[in-house]
C-alpha cells in the first residue's frame, strides 16, 4: 500500500496539568477505514480534535501526504481535505437540508453583479447526493430537524465527501442510533471508503468497528494499546483491550507485538 495520507507520530496533548494524550501514533491510508476504539475518557475526542485542527498538539508531529503539517484552526484542516463529522454537531436542525449541506461553502451565482446564493444549484446537488447515499428527501428545503439521526449523519458525510474530503473523521456516528439506522450509516461509510477516501472511524462499539474497519487501534488513558489488522483480532480481544487492558500479556501476542 502507498504512503499513509495522514500520519501522526507521538502526539501529546496537555491541558494544564492533565495529560490527555501521552504519545499516540496513528496513520490512515486512502481507501481504508481505520477504527479508533477506546472507552470514555480514553482520549479519542482529544485525539481527533488534534487531527482536525481544533487543538494544537503539545508535542509530536503530523504528516499530511508526507509533509509535516501544522493546523492553526479547523479551517486549515478543512482546506487540506480533512473533514470531521461530529456526533451531535453535524447539522443545524432548524435549517433546510440544502442550506445545511452548503453551510460555509455556499454556491454563488452572479445576478446583475451581485453575488447571490444559488438555491437552484444547491437544491439540485443536495437531492442528487442524498439519493446516491440512499436517502429520499421530500424536498431539499425540508428542515434537517425532520430527519432521523442516521439520516443527519448521512447528510453530514455526503457533505464532507462532496467538498473533496481526502480524510473523513467520524466521531461516534453510530452511538446514538437504532439498529437499522446504524446499518445505513455503516453502509455509507463502506461506500465512502470504496471511493478512495481515508476514513477514521471513532467508536466504542466493537461490533460496529468490526463491520467496516480495515485496521483497529485501541486507545486507553491517552496511550495507544496497539493496532491490529482485520482478521487478526477477535471481538472479545478488542473488547478486553478497550475495557482497560486486562489480560494484557496474553493479548500482546495476538496484536503482533505492536504494543
Amino acid at each position: 500500500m502507498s504512503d499513509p495520507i495522514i500520519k501522526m507520530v507521538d502526539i501529546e496533548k496537555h491541558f494544564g496539568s492533565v495529560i490527555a494524550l501521552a504519545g499516540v501514533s496513528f496513520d490512515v491510508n486512502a481507501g481504508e477505514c481505520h477504527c479508533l476504539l477506546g472507552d470514555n475518557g480514553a482520549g479519542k475526542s482529544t485525539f481527533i480534535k488534534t487531527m482536525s485542527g481544533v487543538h494544537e498538539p503539545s508535542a509530536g508531529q503530523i504528516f499530511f501526504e508526507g509533509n509535516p503539517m501544522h493546523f492553526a484552526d479547523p479551517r486549515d484542516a478543512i482546506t487540506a481535505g480533512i473533514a470531521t463529522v461530529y456526533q451531535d454537531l453535524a447539522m443545524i436542525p432548524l435549517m433546510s437540508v440544502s442550506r445545511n449541506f452548503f453551510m460555509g461553502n455556499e454556491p454563488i451565482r452572479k445576478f446583475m453583479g451581485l453575488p447571490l446564493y444559488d438555491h437552484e444549484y444547491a437544491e439540485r446537488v443536495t437531492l442528487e447526493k442524498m439519493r446516491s447515499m440512499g436517502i429520499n428527501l421530500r424536498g431539499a428545503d425540508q428542515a434537517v430537524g425532520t430527519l432521523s439521526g442516521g439520516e443527519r449523519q448521512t447528510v453530514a458525510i455526503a457533505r464532507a465527501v462532496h467538498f473533496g474530503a481526502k480524510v473523513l473523521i467520524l466521531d461516534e456516528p453510530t452511538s446514538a442510533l437504532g439498529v437499522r439506522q446504524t446499518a445505513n450509516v455503516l453502509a455509507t461509510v463502506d461506500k465512502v471508503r470504496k471511493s478512495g477516501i481515508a476514513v477514521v472511524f471513532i467508536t466504542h462499539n466493537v461490533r460496529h468497528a468490526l463491520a467496516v474497519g480495515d485496521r483497529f487501534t485501541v486507545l486507553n488513558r491517552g496511550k495507544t494499546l496497539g493496532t491490529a489488522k482485520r482478521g487478526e483480532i477477535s471481538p472479545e480481544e478488542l473488547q478486553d483491550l478497550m475495557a482497560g487492558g486486562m489480560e494484557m500479556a496474553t493479548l500482546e501476542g495476538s496484536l503482533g507485538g505492536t504494543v
Partner: protein
Amino acid sequence: MSESIPSNDSDERIKSMSTWRKALIRPELGGICGTLLVFTFFLLTAFDSGMFGPAGVLNWSVVSAQFMIIAVGACLLMIAGEFDLSVGSMIGFAGMIIAIFSITLGWPVWLAIILAFVICVSCGALNGFIVVRTGLPSFIVTLAFLFILRGFTIFFPQTFERKTIIGGIRDAAEGDWLAPFFGGKILTGFFQWLGEAGLIEVFVRGSRKGQPIVEGVPMLIVWALALVIFGHFLLTRTRFGNWIFAAGGDAQAARYVGVPVNRVKILMFMFTAFCATVFATCQVMEFGSAGADRGLLKEFEAIIAVVIGGALLTGGYGSVIGAALGALIFGVVQQGLFFAGVESSLFRVFLGLILLMAVILNTYIRRLITGER
C-alpha cells in the same frame, strides 16, 4: 424484515404535501393571519372614520414604518441568535448626538448625522464585541448599554443646554444636503397632481390652501421599505444570509464548517444600531428636536414585532417579511383604536392578545416545518 426497498423516486413513508398546504406552511403565516385579522377588524369598525382615507393611511403607515425600521434590525439579530435591548436608548442617544453637534456646537447638520451614524454603529460593534468575547448573554450586555446610553442621553443636554429637549434642528437643517434623505418627502409632485385632479382632498383654507392634505410619501416610509427589502434579500438570497441562520441555529456547528460566526454576530449588532440611528434621524428631522426620553421601550416593541412575525426567540429561525408584518400590525392597531374611538389603554390588551395568538400559531407551524417536538 419484510419492508421493501423504496425506489429512488418515491418513498412510501414520505407523505406527499399538497401545494396549498406547502404554500401555507411558512414562518410568516402568523404575521399574515394577524394582518388579515387586524385589517378586517378595522375595516368593519372604523371604515368611515377616515382611517382608510389618504391622511388616515399616511398616519398609520408612518407609525408602522417606524416599527418596521427597528424590527428589521432586531429580526436579523434575533435570527443570528442575539438580542439588543439597547435599541430604545440608542434612538434617544443618536438623536441627541445630532442635536448637540448641530445646535450646541453649530456644526453642519450633515456632519452631525454622519457622526451619529459612526458613533452609534461603533456602539453596536462594541456591544457585539463584548458579547462574542465574553460569551455573556447579549440580554445582559445590551441591558447595560440600555442604561449607559440613556444616562448619557439625559446627561449631555442637561450639562450643555440645561434642558432635556434640544430644538431648532429644522431651521438648522434648512438647505442641508443630507437632512432631506431622512426628513424629506418624495412624490410630492404626484400628490400635488392628485390634489389638483380632485382625487385626494385639498386644504380649503389657511396658509396651505389648495395644497393636498397629503404632501408626499415621507422618507421614513421609504427607509422602512428599503430596509425590509434589503433585510429579506440578505437573509434569503445571499451567502451571508445562510451564515446568519447558521450562527443563530448552532454557533458551534457553524464554526466547525468554517462560518465566521463572531463576525456575523458583530455585523448584526452594527446593523441593528444602524437601523436605530435611521429611526432617530428621521424622528429628529420630523420633530425638529431631540428629546432625552425618545425611543423609550422601543427595544421591546421591536422584539414583539419580530416575534409576531414568526422568529424564534432563541435564534436560527425567522423571516424579515414576517417582522415587517408584525410592525404593520403594531402600527395599525395603535392608530386604528384611535380612529375607532376606543380607549387607547385597550391598545395594550389588543396587542397582548395578538401577540399570544400569533406566537401560538407560529410555534405550531414551526414544529411542522422543523420537526421539533
